[in-house]
């Protein structure tokens, strides 16, 4: 197939989203990591809803933040856990912008818990996509608020013990409990069917922001092969057999 200008001008039926750089720079992800899959969903949604020109993405700190070098929408990379504070100010000052945060489970639920609760309390008209891989991927697989009971991490070498480290936090259910939250859902990308469902959730979340209704939140489960010490295929099996029963997939609110 000829890779000339004519070919590229034709309708895109497969390949990278248009808002990804070509080539999309250094996608710094491990084999089998599902973060880029979630990035892709967000990118497709921004394109299909035709809102990428107004979009401002606010990133936390963690593997999810590597998207900043790969897509071509306006992006702010924040202090660890503070994306929702920065997003709040941008949306308040520039209400016409489509403002969304991309955060990991540690960024949003541990160090960023205060900002998360604050944004939901105020019902900020912004959207969060939280990637849940049940550990801190970037720093080598430590205990996260979402780590499952018994899951071994580098800081729970004997497995998460609820008497010492407590219980997994179900962020989507927590978010749904706030009146300021108008939409909350949990999706996964472990199968084509779930990919489509997750995409539908993310689309709805952005629509709630466009409608000016309040805070919208989508949690998406993501595989982390090196820190789970599993092959990519076994990671998908773990998501189906262990993680989804603990973190059920559904629209919890909205």
């Amino acid at each position: 197939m000829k890779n000339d200008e004519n070919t590229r001008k034709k309708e895109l039926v497969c390949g990278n989203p248009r808002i990804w750089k070509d080539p999309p720079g250094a996608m710094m992800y491990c084999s089998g990591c599902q973060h880029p899959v979630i990035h892709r969903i967000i990118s497709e949604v921004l394109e299909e809803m035709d809102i990428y020109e107004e979009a401002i993405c606010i990133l936390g700190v963690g593997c999810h933040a590597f998207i900043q070098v790969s897509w071509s929408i306006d992006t702010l990379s924040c202090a660890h856990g503070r994306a929702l504070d920065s997003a709040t100010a941008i949306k308040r000052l520039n209400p016409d912008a489509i403002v969304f945060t991309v955060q990991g489970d540690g960024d949003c639920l541990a160090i960023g818990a205060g900002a998360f609760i604050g944004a939901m309390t105020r019902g900020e008209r912004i959207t969060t996509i939280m990637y849940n891989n049940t550990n801190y991927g970037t720093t080598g697989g430590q205990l996260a608020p979402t780590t499952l009971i018994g899951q071994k991490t580098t800081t729970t070498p004997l497995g998460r013990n609820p008497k010492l480290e407590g219980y997994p936090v179900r962020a989507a259910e927590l978010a749904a409990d706030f009146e300021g939250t108008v939409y909350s859902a949990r999706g996964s990308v472990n199968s084509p069917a779930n990919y489509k469902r997750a995409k539908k959730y993310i689309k709805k979340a952005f629509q709630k922001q466009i409608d000016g209704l309040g805070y919208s939140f989508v949690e998406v489960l993501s595989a982390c092969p090196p820190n789970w010490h599993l092959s990519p295929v076994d990671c998908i099996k773990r998501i189906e057999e262990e993680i989804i029963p603990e973190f059920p997939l559904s629209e919890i609110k909205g």
Partner: protein
Amino acid sequence: MAERMFVQGNEAVGWGALYAGCDGFFGYPITPQNEVTQWFASEFPKRGKVFLQSQSEVGSINMLYGGAAAGFRVMTSTSSPGWGLMQETISHCVAAELPCIIVLVQRGGPGAGSIRHAQMDYISVTRGGGQGGYKNIVLAPASVQEIHDLVQLAFYLADKYRNPTIVLADGILGQVSESVDVKTIDFGPLNEKDWALRGIGKQKDGKCRLINSAAGVLPVPPYPNYISWLRHMDEKYKQMEADELRYETYKAEDAELILIAYGYTARVSKETVNMARLQGLKVGLIRPITAWPFPYDIIREKAIQGCKFLVVVDSLGLLIEDVKIAVESRADVGLVSILDRHLPTDGGMIMPGRVFEEVKRLI
């Protein structure tokens, strides 16, 4: 056209910000600066500007990080414990080159300290209190008028250098009321913020903008690597030092003893100079208006001429370190400190009479 008003120092922060074209204020309640937050809450929304009470001072400063990145003039105000909480993201603002204003109405410390005036944050303010070592221009008003004026200058300097600027007040200046001319001060033209995040549809060149605070991880154009970016930052700090030094001298020309003070203790010191002059004592004052950059050269010049110095500051010293650096052991440097307050409580103040006692002892 100036409007003459009789306002409190904390309120003058608001008037200065309004006339500087501030777009948004983000703050958290803390004494003794609550009038600042309350002023913005009542005056900003009705003018179509943003006021938001954050969930913490950590929230406030990260809201500034976002608002500044989106190209708006944004500010917060706090007192000493809140200042401590903000350090991490002030450092991020410097690294991401985001202009914003932090007004610090100092109170007693350390810890929760007191809820009344003091001048105990000098070192963390002037040295870059957060991680990584950096510089912020620090403007230290000594009157309500100057609070109004320096808040406006702070916005200009922040935009000029793409760097946070600190306005360093204290509980006394915040609470005192004086007559003020309220008006917009023109400091000259500034570059357009073509680096700001607006959504690519609103970028003139249609290209995306990326702002991050990790130049050593992901190179920030046009700097190809971490050290070239650090060199750029170093040059910026040096330019600030060269171009933005501001200080006031008062009867220092023929002085044998020079008082060094900023903020409310500078007002006390000026009064002391007047008392001394009435008795024929050659006493003067050098008042840093920028606590950073610090007026080392003029102090050194006076030391070479044979002057003695007396630092007057409502802390355990702090400011004296800069004066000692300036004089390079050429002159004696005395100190009137928080231990010399007229009452041994949080309400005690450094009074002109006590400073004058020390002046007579040294001269």
